[in-house]
């Protein structure tokens, strides 16, 4: 039981890391390699808010999310839209955006190194025991899990039960045909990219309450997010959430019952299995 709860909590953390990228890659079709840097940047902002201005990270998120939406929108409009316009097909767009966001990665990392230096940062927030069925877990992780679950649920409701959300899904499935039914594809894609950035930033804010981070750590998170997004099925929020939970539980089970040294191996073994038997992802649809 303890293994399951620990695993689910870890899965929640992974979901936080990956949900933003799902939207950005699945809908806006931008393979954002600077995803991890967005997350770390949010960690820094949350750290700064908490230690200097003494703002609770959960409240800080209310400020961080809209700022992230605005900044990501600007990035999309200024940097990525020209690439989208000139791309002749999806493959070309992918190559171009990977190169562009690869550059962004270094720009963001450099800015963070400049602003905060290269040292380790961490602060203490809700690092208290929280009892579930007699075992204690970190309250900050429980809060992060609940937040991840609510974000995923809200996102699901939004995507599947609103007009705007349906339009976003239509873009994810087929951007060309979506135009035929009067969906403003560029605007939708921009919105999805901005929303994805905001989700990533929220994830970073929550992560900063229990992770020790530094300016050069973003790529670790990007890797994790990438694995989860591809495992879940590109652009499918439910798939990404399920993939994150599976990874969390699997890693914790192996770590507890076999050896903690094998968590990374478990991670990649699952990834390979999914790629072998369901290359389109757990809930992904096979491409025509």
């Amino acid at each position, binding site marked *: 039981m*303890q*293994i399951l709860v*620990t695993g689910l909590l*870890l899965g929640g*953390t992974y979901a936080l890391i990956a949900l933003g990228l799902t939207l950005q890659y699945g809908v806006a079709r931008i393979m954002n390699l600077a995803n991890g840097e967005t997350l770390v940047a949010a960690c820094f902002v949350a750290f700064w808010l908490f230690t200097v201005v003494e703002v609770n990270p959960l409240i800080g998120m209310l400020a961080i999310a809209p700022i992230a939406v605005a900044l990501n929108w600007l990035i999309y409009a200024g940097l990525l839209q020209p690439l989208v316009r000139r791309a002749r097909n999806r493959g070309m767009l992918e190559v171009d955006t990977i190169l562009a966001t690869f550059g962004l990665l270094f720009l963001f*990392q450099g800015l963070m*190194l400049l602003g905060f*230096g*290269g*040292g*380790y940062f*961490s*602060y*203490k927030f809700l*690092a*208290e*025991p929280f009892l579930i069925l007699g*075992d*204690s*877990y*970190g309250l900050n992780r429980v809060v992060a899990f609940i937040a991840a679950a609510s974000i995923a649920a809200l996102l699901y409701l939004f995507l599947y039960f609103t007009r705007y959300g349906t339009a976003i899904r239509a873009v994810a499935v087929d951007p060309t045909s979506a135009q035929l039914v009067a969906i403003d594809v560029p605007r939708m894609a921009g919105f999805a990219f901005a929303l994805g950035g905001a989700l990533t930033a929220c994830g970073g804010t929550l992560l900063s309450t*229990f*992770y*020790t*981070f*530094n*300016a*050069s750590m973003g790529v*670790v998170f990007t890797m994790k997010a990438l694995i989860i997004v591809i495992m879940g099925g590109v652009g499918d929020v439910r798939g990404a959430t399920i993939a994150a939970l599976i990874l969390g539980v699997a*890693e*914790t089970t192996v*770590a*507890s019952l076999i*050896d*903690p*040294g094998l*968590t*990374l191996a478990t991670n990649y073994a699952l990834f390979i299995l999914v790629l072998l038997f369901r290359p389109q992802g757990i809930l992904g649809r096979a491409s025509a």
Partner: protein
Amino acid sequence: MLRRTFNSLMVSVALFSLGAGAAIAEETLKVGVSASKTGPLTAGATAVYWPNMQLWVHDVNQKGGIKVGEKLLKVELVEYDDKSGPEEAVKNIQRLATVDKVDFIVAPYTTGINLAAAPLIARYGYPQLIATGNANELETFVKRWPNSFWLLGKASDMSTGVVGTLKTLRDKGQIGNKVALAHVGEAFGLEMIQSAKPAFKTAGFDIVYETSYPIGTQDLAPIISGAKAAKADAFVAFSYPPDTFALTEQAQIQGLNVDAFYVGVGGALSGYAKRFAKQAEGVLAMGGINPADRAYKDYRERHKQVTGQEPDYWASPVVYASLQILQQAIEKVGSKDRAAVTKAISSGTFDTVIGKVSFNNNMLGRVWTVGQWNNGVLQGVNGLGVDGANAPIKKPAWN
């Protein structure tokens, strides 16, 4: 019009470079530094390495410079980023030696990069004072590269240090016999565990739980539950900074109340005490210092003033001491002759922020191995040839 602007630009560039040339013409002591400013090692280097370069140059130049024979030479630092990789480090050292033609080179940051750079540094005849690395088999290494000096002791000194401390506690009847071991699955962790395990067995300890974890993992709840389930009396982790923090927090959350709790790299950072405050009390960590020592106290004060950040309780003062040793050896020899300076380092005694030190077979005889947090200060409790070590105490329960 454009041409005229261009011409005047050229003239001003020429004038400017002339001026700069005149400024450079003043003789300086050029010291080359190559260490991590980007990449995964940056965090450590920012904590214990770079601030000491800044402080040392500040200290030396404020006094007018280093006395080389009759002349007082200011220090001019040439800095390069090794991007946390040995390949880049080797390129940088090559450049420092051949293009910048620096007079001396500061040893790079971390064991791995020092090992990689040693042959090149030796080829150009620079002394290499390694203050941020340790390894086993140092005797063989020193025989091969006699210009390398080791200031942090052997890896086995560090790992057996904690065994000694736990033995002291057990013989006093303060802790039991059961030890849980964890280490990061990387060169450092493996080297430590290799020497620690036999030492624990020889000392009669019972290893009830043992595990490794991949570098970079911060989700370590299963390790703490494992140690708890094994009913260990002492928890020992040869960890790196992010996991050092994660293990400490997780141990509190799960209420792993062992009588001795030891963490590796990162446990000596001032940030550790800041983060955990009262909870850090009684935690054992790799490193240590005699915090009451005047030289260290002064150093700590200046470090804070000049660099705006606090030094740690382990490698920071040693890095600074390595620079002081270089400086004093140059002054003793009275020239920039590298071979003579290397010789002076190996035979001399130096007055540094870690006390009066000398090398025995190119290894520093004074090495702190274990410290214990006591009122926000990491007080050394074990070491080789050190004075001012406190007796270790049983760790109070997390509160």
